């Protein structure tokens, strides 16, 4: 199913936004303005954008460690995503979370957990809550190919299918877990998502760099979930252009492999060609790119100018309901 031109244009904007965002994050990480380590998703923008265009703010989303784009497109004030990564008080988690722990519960971003795979189990719970309350929102959990090694995923699939909860497993297969190729450390017949069949869970494998394929596959999975037909898996085949984290030289990968993905499979370039073929003027697309760059520049400015958290924030929220015996003066 071909998507409307307007939708594709919005997607084009969003993909550019993610790319610019990641480039800036990389730059400021290297400059020392961003603390900690950072996982970039340059090259994977279609996978993130296509999925997020299907989900709404009332759906529960569990981004993984490589999910700035997911957070950006969740519906949050975008500059607050950037500010969070900069560890600023104006960030979505007031600077307490950082790149790997970004949540915005108001728009259904339930936050990442840097223990890979554990959100596949946590997502069971939001999905069960939707069913429990008779609501039609769905839960989407993101995970990489390497994360498929985790036992928690399997416990999750077994229970999700058995309880028939509205859960979609978004498997972003970029071929590598740090330095390790999926086929080197895992065993599966053809695709990692073939395993879903063992739980009677339908799975689809699509080109994760083709935004229309991503959108359509995700849409089918979400529809099934909303209709009460239970969990699905969507496997998106893609590639990360950078190393595992910002600064990783990624010498474990052949150079021509990277080159090939950049040249032949750039999700942004390919959508641009498609849009131009559909008759969208090149200037219009340039303008979208510029606007995206501008929006990201503004985010960076906001983040740079924002204050750090207060020291008193350090001991805030340890207990949601503090105990009488812990109160001041006791």
């Amino acid at each position, binding site marked *: 199913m071909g998507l409307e031109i307007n939708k594709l244009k919005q997607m084009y904007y969003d993909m550019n936004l993610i790319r610019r965002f990641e480039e800036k994050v990389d730059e400021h990480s290297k400059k020392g303005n961003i603390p900690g380590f950072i996982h970039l998703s340059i090259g994977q923008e279609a996978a993130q954008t296509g999925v997020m265009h299907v989900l709404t703010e009332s759906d*529960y989303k569990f981004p993984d460690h490589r999910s700035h784009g997911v957070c950006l497109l969740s519906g949050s004030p975008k500059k607050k995503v950037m500010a969070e990564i900069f560890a600023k008080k104006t960030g979505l*988690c*007031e600077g*307490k*979370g950082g790149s790997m*722990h970004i*949540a*915005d*519960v*108001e728009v259904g971003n*339930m*936050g990442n*957990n840097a*223990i890979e795979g*554990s959100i*596949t*189990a*946590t*997502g*069971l*719970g*939001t*999905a*069960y*809550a939707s069913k*429990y309350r008779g609501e039609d929102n769905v*839960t989407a959990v993101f995970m990489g190919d390497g994360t498929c090694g985790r*036992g*928690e995923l399997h*416990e*999750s699939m*077994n*229970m999700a299918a*058995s*309880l028939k909860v509205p859960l979609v497993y978004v498997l972003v297969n970029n071929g590598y877990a740090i330095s390790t190729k999926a086929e080197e450390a895992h065993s599966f017949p053809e695709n990692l998502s073939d395993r879903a069949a063992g739980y009677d869970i339908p799975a689809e494998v699509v080109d994760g760099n083709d935004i229309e394929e991503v959108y359509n596959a995700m849409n089918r999975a979400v529809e099934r979930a909303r209709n009460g037909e239970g969990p699905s898996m969507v496997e998106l085949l893609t590639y990360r252009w950078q190393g595992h984290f910002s600064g990783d030289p990624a010498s474990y990968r052949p150079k021509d492999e990277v080159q090939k993905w950049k040249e032949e499979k750039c999700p942004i370039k390919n959508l641009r060609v498609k849009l131009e073929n559909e008759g969208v003027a090149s200037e219009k697309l340039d303008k979208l790119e510029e606007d995206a760059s501008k929006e990201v520049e503004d985010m960076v400015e906001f983040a740079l100018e924002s204050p750090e958290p207060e020291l008193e*924030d350090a001991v*805030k*929220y*340890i*207990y*949601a*309901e503090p*105990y*009488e*015996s*812990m109160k001041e003066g*006791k």
Partner: protein
Amino acid sequence: MRELKFSQALNEALHQEMERDEDVFVLGQDVGKMGGDFGVTKGLWKKYGDRRVIDTPLSEAAMLGLSNGAAFTGLRPVVEIMFADFITECFDQIVNNSAKAHYMFSGQLTAPIVLRTANGGGFRAAYHHSQNPEAWLMNIPGITVVAPTTPYEAKGLLISSIRSENPIVFFEHKMLYSTSGEVPEESYELELGKAKVKREGSDVTIIASMKMCEYALQAAEELAKDGISVEVIDPRTLVPFDKETIFDSIAKTNRVVVAYEAPKTGGYGAEIAGMLNDEMFEFLKAPVKRVASKDSPVAFSPKLEDYILPNYNEVLEGIKEVVEY
């Protein structure tokens, strides 16, 4: 007043809370049709059905994941981990998710789960069905650990735990399930984070919970005959610890025994002794005596198990030793 068994008191708490609050649901292995391995969830499935009472597979990690996720949306899951030894299977969800979610997302969500689990030895069940893992949970800021001793406490503390916004690990010592005691019919709460002076005394304080608290009360009774006045404190909440109640007591008695069933080294009493040494140094007239298990796994042979676990006599002698110091 009417008497109930410990397990019945817990069961009544669950019935009343599920009746009161549609958001409360329970999950665990065999909690439904069978009513739980120790009968604590009896009758719930019949009354509330599959939606609110879930018989799970052997998937402790996913059970905790489900609980956390549901709690994030405001539901109140009560998850039964059949034996406390199995929290090793879901330890990540407890440590890295339940305990930290509220903090790391800066207060945006809470994780009001209750993880109920049967701990303790004496059941001749050996290594993987006998442990007292409270110490594994003591260095994880954000977690609350609750441990009732009597049926009255079992009911009141479970109700408070379900209503709390904090993630709670709720220990049920398996040798207490069949003990009886008075339990009011109506619903009631007992304050979390608050210790209970169960017997007043002036010569020595013993801090003990669950089965060890039973021993402590018995020993206090016995020692009273010799003119030794023992104050018995049941922490009820093990983490965070109610310093105030204990400090007040020590200020009076100046002598302390801590009794716990886990291995001595690195156990629960280590922190109490450390804390008292630090904050009540001038008041202590004798070392804080720890009566605890040998630093050993819990063997199968009843003879060995009885030798490894702390017994009534060791509690009694421990108190005497501190008094005579």
